[in-house]
């Protein structure tokens, strides 16, 4: 079996409400019970409540596999990068350091790396990954490109990422505002690391900048 070619995984961090449902759903999977393979990160909790779900992006040329000295990370014919093969993985953590998206994790107690495999047992038979089945806001969406463009007419799927000199293409798509994509059809990840989280969820015109509580005394 293979993941049907017409089904894709779309991540739309703009829509993430931080509810943790994806994390709980992932945690309950029998293949890695108790551990979540999806990471739900605050971008900068000190200044924003914005969260972003991080799944394996399933690179065309997976850096994690390229740096693995034990050849423990395999990519299936349909482009899904698997978790480490148990007999091979030596838990060296090379993949953890090398992954541009920060996805793999080494579990010291079990001496193995584990990561998101897009629920291959499910997606390979046309079912949605667990996280996408529970996401209430479609920040995690598994379906056809047509469905996605109907749902999000103002966004475009992007699967090219720039990490310094390294260009990466992925199987998983990130939804970006159309206005940005038309200017630059890829995501410059290293440049984005310099961006500061916007302090307020609602942008107020005309005075957007500055402390919204400037008038409140302590």
């Amino acid at each position, binding site marked *: 079996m293979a993941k049907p070619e017409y089904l894709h995984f779309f991540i739309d961090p703009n829509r993430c409400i931080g*509810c943790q449902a994806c994390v709980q759903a992932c945690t309950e999977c029998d293949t890695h019970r108790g551990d*979540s393979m999806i990471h739900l990160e605050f971008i900068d909790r*000190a200044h924003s409540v914005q969260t972003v779900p991080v799944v394996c992006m399933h690179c065309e040329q997976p850096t994690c596999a390229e740096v693995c000295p034990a050849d423990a990370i395999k990519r299936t014919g349909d482009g899904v990068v698997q978790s480490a093969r148990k007999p091979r993985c030596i838990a060296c953590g090379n993949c953890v350091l090398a992954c541009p998206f920060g996805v793999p994790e080494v579990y010291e107690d079990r001496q193995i790396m584990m990561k998101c495999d897009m629920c291959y047992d499910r997606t390979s038979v046309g079912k949605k990954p667990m996280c996408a089945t529970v996401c209430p806001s479609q920040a995690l969406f598994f379906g056809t490109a047509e469905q996605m463009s109907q749902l999000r007419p103002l966004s475009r799927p992007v699967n090219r990422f720039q990490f310094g000199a390294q260009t990466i293409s992925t199987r998983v798509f990130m939804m970006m505002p159309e206005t940005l994509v038309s200017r630059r059809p890829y995501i410059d990840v290293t440049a984005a690391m310099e961006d500061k989280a916007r*302090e307020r969820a609602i942008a107020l015109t005309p*005075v957007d900048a500055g*402390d*919204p*509580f400037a008038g409140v*005394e*302590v």
Partner: protein
Amino acid sequence: MPERALRQTAEWWGTAKTSFLFHARGIEHHSNGVQNALGTINLVLATGRIGKPKSGYGTITGQANGQGGREHGQKCDQLPGWRDISNPDHRRHIAGIWGIDEPDLPGPGVDAYELFRKIDAGEIKGLLSICFNPKVSLPDNGFITRCLDKLEFFAAIDFFLNDTARHADVVLPGSLQEEDEGTVTQVEGRVIKINKAVDPPGDARQDWRIIQDIARALDRPHGFTFAEPRAIFDELRRASKGGVADYSGITYEKIERQMGVFWPCYTEDPESGAPVEHAGTPRLFERGSYNPVAKGAGPFYFADGKARFNVAEYRPPVDDASDDFPLYLTTGRVVSHFLSGTQTRRIAPLIDQYPEPRIEMHPRLAAKLGIADGDWAIAETRRGRITLKAMVVSTIRPDTIFIPYHWPGEKSANQLTVAAQDPISRIPQYKVCGCRVFKAGGAPAYAAVREPQQ
């Protein structure tokens, strides 16, 4: 709130073609919570955005069946079908359904907090509670703990031994939603079905079976002889018939078929009395709609069918910020825990997500107090004090601190909250009281001890 934010919101709200106004506990948990809700309803009425597609108003409830419970008598001044226990017609109707004499129906009871004041005064001596954890969930919970120990007899029906049930003389192991069957009503008035997934473990039993057994043991089985949840629901359907929240036409089959049924849903046309196959009412207050109060005169619940604007006068909170307690304490929830934490404080991945309460404070307040993110800090009100780690974030007002309430004992935010209540709804004022904060000398003793369920 900055004035420009208010003006911008009004600009967006006023010029929108359609709108939905939702609020949750934020504006309700005040001693003027009803005034706050009336203010928002006035906005909805003034803009005419109710009873129309893509428009309306709703309060998001804190529990799965918060809506259904409040429609049918969970509050002890109500009767099924959104009826009033003080209304003679309503009393006669329900007494007829239940096969009892109207005088045998009690009058309105007291709210959950007043119950404890009556225990304190010696007027209430025994308590049977179901899924109730006031030691965590009610304000000024030092008072609650003293009252629990004053009871002559206390029996608790609960699925886990919660912090309150530890005071009980008898604990009867009840059931979780997953171990029973029934319906819940969502915020939009849609009745949905809950199916049993697993059997209660060991000696645990469904709550309704326990209550029926108690009734039998008291030699008063009348009305407590149901064989299954569906029979209970069928009685509710009959009892609610003719009321505002009319469930009479809702069946398990219709719920399955329609993915839920919106009340009112009739078995007989309310105007002609003719039998009718009714799908339910997805939108309330539509022009030309019928309700048993207006009887066709108009869509709203007044005799003339017209809505009313209510003057929502501002009252300052009880125990407002003052020179001695210059900050506002507000309490609430975090996404990883549910209510008093009886369920979620036992689940390891949820504990990992949010292991203990913290005091959220603005960087400017933290700088003034000399507190850094992760430092132990003490928050103090007129009721008590609590020592927790500080969480310094600019997503809160500089003159306000936030503490989530899901924990018991020394980690309980409700040691600090004030037992003031709204005079109409009787909801407690969890969302504001005067408070002061200072840096702690070191970690509290509890920091080295794990909770029993951990």
